[in-house]
């Protein structure tokens, strides 16, 4: 007799993960290489500031919004923060996920309790709904939104939702939900190189360039 | 000691690490007992809880023992192995432990009742008893 849920879970943990990983890792490397190989011309103007230092600094400092701007796009700013932080906590501080990193890279760090992980997940999901809502209603967001944006929002929400359901056994067979959870992550991985999800890696590059360009002139960034 | 569910109650010392591992199931169980007891008083309905159906950690056993304690009545039945029937410090709450002939636990119950049924003489046994007694009387008569 076949246990469909178990088989699906094993498929998700086995061949499906390998395929997703190949597309994910290969695609990201491809796209990062595509960026760097284009290169940029050496800047001949004598520098006033230190471009490298400011570029590196900007990778972090740009995580803090400029004063006075949050009130003009509160959903995007606050929802964005809650989503990113919530997703980050759920992804990196839930023990089963850490086990994956330990297996892959041999590194480990302390996990957090279920209460924190689940609150983070729930908040991230709520924030995601708010972000989707703002894409429907806010004129700026509406004007910019493409299919890609909705796809990415849904794809990043599914792992949170399925993970929450699987852990809490809200409905459905828990093994099946866990399979769905892993498959939803794999869908996210597969979509990664083809969509704006790339920003999770490329943001550091663009923030660096931004900081370096400004820093060279001795200007703020 | 390899007694099902209860090894910790008999082996654990207060400083035993494992004796503090609890699932958190003791408290709801004690509440269930409380409700059953008040129902018994209100309407006379008895209630039996099978301890084998509840996941219990050693710590839970300790909590249960501490709260219920030992009461006034303690009976040992010798029927295919022993059975221990004890009233707890909470009158109306009984603990019934069935052991097999090797002294291992078969099943454990908490009964909320004025008198556990197993203590009462069963009608069929009394019938059997009557027959036996009559037989013995016949023998007695024959001998005399």
């Amino acid at each position, binding site marked *: *007799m*076949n*246990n469909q849920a*178990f*088989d699906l879970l*094993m498929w998700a*943990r*086995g061949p499906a*993960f*390998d395929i997703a*990983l*190949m597309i994910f*890792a*290969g*695609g990201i*490397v*491809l796209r*990062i290489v*595509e960026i760097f*190989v*284009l290169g940029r011309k050496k800047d001949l103007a004598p520098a006033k500031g230190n471009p490298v230092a400011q570029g590196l600094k900007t990778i972090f400092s740009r995580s803090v919004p400029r004063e006075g701007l949050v009130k003009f796009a509160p959903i995007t700013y606050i929802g964005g923060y809650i989503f990113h932080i919530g997703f980050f906590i759920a992804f990196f501080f839930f*023990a*089963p*996920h*850490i*086990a*994956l990193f330990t297996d*892959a890279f041999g590194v480990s760090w302390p996990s957090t*309790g279920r209460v924190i992980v689940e609150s983070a997940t729930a908040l991230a999901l709520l924030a995601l709904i708010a972000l989707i809502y703002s894409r429907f209603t806010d004129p700026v967001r509406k004007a910019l939104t493409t299919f890609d944006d909705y796809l990415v929002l849904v794809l990043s929400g599914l792992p949170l939702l399925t993970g929450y359901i699987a852990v809490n056994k809200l409905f459905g067979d*828990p*093994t099946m939900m*866990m399979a769905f959870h892993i498959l939803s992550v794999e869908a996210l991985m597969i979509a990664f190189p083809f969509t704006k999800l790339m920003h999770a890696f490329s943001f550091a590059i663009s923030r660096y360039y931004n900081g370096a360009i400004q820093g060279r002139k001795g200007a703020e960034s | 000691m*390899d007694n*099902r*569910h209860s090894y910790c109650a008999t082996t654990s010392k207060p400083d035993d*690490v494992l004796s503090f591992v609890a*699932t958190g199931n003791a408290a709801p169980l004690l509440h269930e007992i409380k409700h059953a007891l008040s129902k018994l008083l209100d309407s006379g309905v008895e209630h*039996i*809880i*099978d301890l*084998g159906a509840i*996941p219990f*950690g*050693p710590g839970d056993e300790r909590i249960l023992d501490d709260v219920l304690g030992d009461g006034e009545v303690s009976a040992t*039945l010798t*029927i*295919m192995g022993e*059975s221990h029937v004890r009233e707890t410090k909470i009158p109306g709450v009984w603990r*019934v432990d*069935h052991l*097999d*002939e*090797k002294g291992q*636990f*078969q*099943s454990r*119950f908490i009964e909320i009742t004025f008198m556990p049924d*197993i203590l009462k003489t*069963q009608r069929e046994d009394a019938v*059997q008893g009557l027959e036996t007694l009559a037989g013995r009387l016949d023998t007695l008569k024959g001998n005399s």
Partner: protein
Amino acid sequence: MSNKAMLPELMKTHGISRRAFMKYCASLASVMALSPAMVPRIAEALENARRPSVIWLSFQECTGCTESILRSHSPTIEDLIFNAISLDYHHTLQAASGHAAEAAREQAMKENYGKYILVVDGSIPIKDPGYSCIAGISNLDMLKETAAGAAAIVSVGTCAAYGGIGHADPNPTGAVGVSEIIKDKPIINVPGCPPIPVVMTGVLAHFLTFGIPDLDELGRPKAFYGESIHDRCYRRPFYDKGMFAENFDDEGARGGWCLYKLGCKGPITKSACATIKWNNGVSFPIEAGHPCLGCTEPDFWDNGGFYKPLSVPAGDYRKAGVAAVAGGAAIGVASALMSKAKKAKAAKAHETVDAHDLEKSS
């Protein structure tokens, strides 16, 4: 073999009192995971229970299931149940051998045709039935033949239920469980490697008293396989608090913390191990400090490794990852070089403009 209710008779000959019978029924209710309120009905059912004939077939198996069921030996309530059935054929347990043994099976089948219970342990090879034969009869043929006259089949152990270790990749013998072959009989799966003895006897007791129990989608009695080990595990609070043993000899392992990271399959494994436990309720693997292997689930041998956490991919994904990175880099460089060539071409095609070349001619 007699088909009349035999238990009251048996009790009388053993000098067992009604009170003892009630104690037995209470314990039986506990074993069958039934409510204590069911005790009177169990008593009634047992009083009327017929003594059925049981034929036990062992195929590709290790005898672990039989060993397990024998662990609960006399004189326990299980023993009483075995007094309540007539075990007419069991390789390991019967005294008869050779032709006499086969004759016993054939006779039991003939006398109780349509009424006997067939218990099977071990998987059945179907790639080449010759892989496993008894008395020159292939397992497949013997199963089909014996199943034809059975009232119900109990597949004891994961091998009989789902193929078990024989079915594990690459499954050289083409081993399958009973339900892959027999489609027209009620089948109760009692998986486990081996199953908990009390579960095996509990299922038999249920069959004797109330017939076929409520089964899940994998044919397992819900009473024993209704909940996951994880949900019933006394170490669950550690999981919820994020406290995990990382090694078999670390602080977490000594402290009795959750074994998820050591590969525990509890979250996807349905079994009563955490409540009924083993060896007369002494302990179960997790309590002994070892992660659950998930042995009551089909294909548990192929779940990616017993010590691999569930969240870790089962395959050799690192190779795929390294290959993908290398491949991605290669394609990336190729694509980027094309882009660079395009840029160089554009630079070459650059027409130097002066201030008077900025308008369209049209």
